[in-house]
């Protein structure tokens, strides 16, 4: 199974990024092979609809689980339609969040943000 996490940088010790849509990279962790792949998030600098584009990238990665501190409503619509389960990540390293998830310590993300659309994109 693949786990996707929005992260600050493309190295193994990276922290989870505070933003989903505007995260610089996504870490895709394969729970079987234990391999990590970093995908550049092209939505990071998008004019608008960053959440949608970022969610598309996660869906395209074939991840089945997303660990994220937050998720906007448009991104959630894409993620849910792609049957990806969303768990609320904890502050800190991506690595420790993967461990926490595998031990069943993370809970499902319930709160969905209304998003920023229109406020900065115009």
């Amino acid at each position: 199974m693949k786990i996707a996490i929005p992260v600050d940088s493309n190295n193994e010790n990276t922290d989870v990024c505070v933003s989903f849509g505007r995260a610089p990279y996504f870490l895709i962790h394969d729970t079987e092979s234990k391999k990590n792949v970093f995908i550049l998030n092209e939505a990071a600098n998008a004019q608008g609809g960053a959440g949608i584009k970022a969610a598309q990238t996660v869906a395209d990665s074939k991840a089945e689980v997303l660990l994220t501190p937050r998720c906007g409503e448009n991104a959630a619509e894409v993620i849910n339609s792609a049957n990806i389960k969303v768990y609320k990540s904890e502050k800190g390293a991506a690595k420790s969040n993967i461990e926490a998830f595998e031990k069943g310590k993370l809970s499902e993300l319930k709160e969905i943000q209304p998003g920023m659309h229109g406020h900065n994109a115009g």
Partner: protein
Amino acid sequence: MRIAVLSGKGGTGKTLVAVNLACVADYAQYIDCDAEEPNGHLFFKPQNTEEKIINRLIPVIDETKCDLCRKCVDFCRFNALALIGNKIKVFDKICHSCGGCKIVCPQNAITEKEKRIGKIISGTSENVRVETGMTEVGESSAVPVISALLADKIDVETVITDCPPGCACTVMESIKDADYCVLVAEPTLFGVHNLNMVYELVKAFKKPHGVILNKCVEGIDIAENYCKEKQLKVISRIKFDKELGKLNSDGEIVSRVNAGYKAMFADTLKSIKEEVSHETASDS
């Protein structure tokens, strides 16, 4: 002559200035482009109003024709389309109605449907033709309503555009066709910060412009000094005045009920028109 009235923030007196400039003209068209929260009509109370519905076009995907090639998703600058599973999903609110997805679709699987996004209410108030843009609640952008408002040009000498506050896309859309921009600002430090934002905007748009300082109090010269420093023309200074404030908050048009204010705004309109003809002369 198309005069746009704008300011870096709400509450500086844009509507006060725009409404009264329209009233002191022989005949004017007043266009309320603050289409998210229009309030000029509260002063004008226009008669014989007519409504026009504003729609925009949103893509519809014919799933029987779509082969999931993804060209539309990759094309969309605003990321309003997503390919999930075996379906293209359209995010209506994110879509800017550019129609590009329909053009790039090799399967001709995309048609467009109309989505109601607002309305224009037109009416008359004495010597002023009043046009008000109203965006539907929940619409993320008022820009299409504003562009529809400004597309309907009628043949009058004076057109006053009451712009939305700030300097976002809605304001840019509102000043596009303006011959002159009036920047309304309060004389405070905060007012100067906001004035600077709209000044940068009209400079970028290369629009002739001047400043009206509102709620002026003796001894506070922050905005005055800023204008001097930037060599900005101050067209008019409206004093902080409880009587004006009271009339205005009662929904009265001050230049229609008080001869002094009428003379003041008539002077201001005259100065603006002289500025515009001066600009036109120096351009040619």
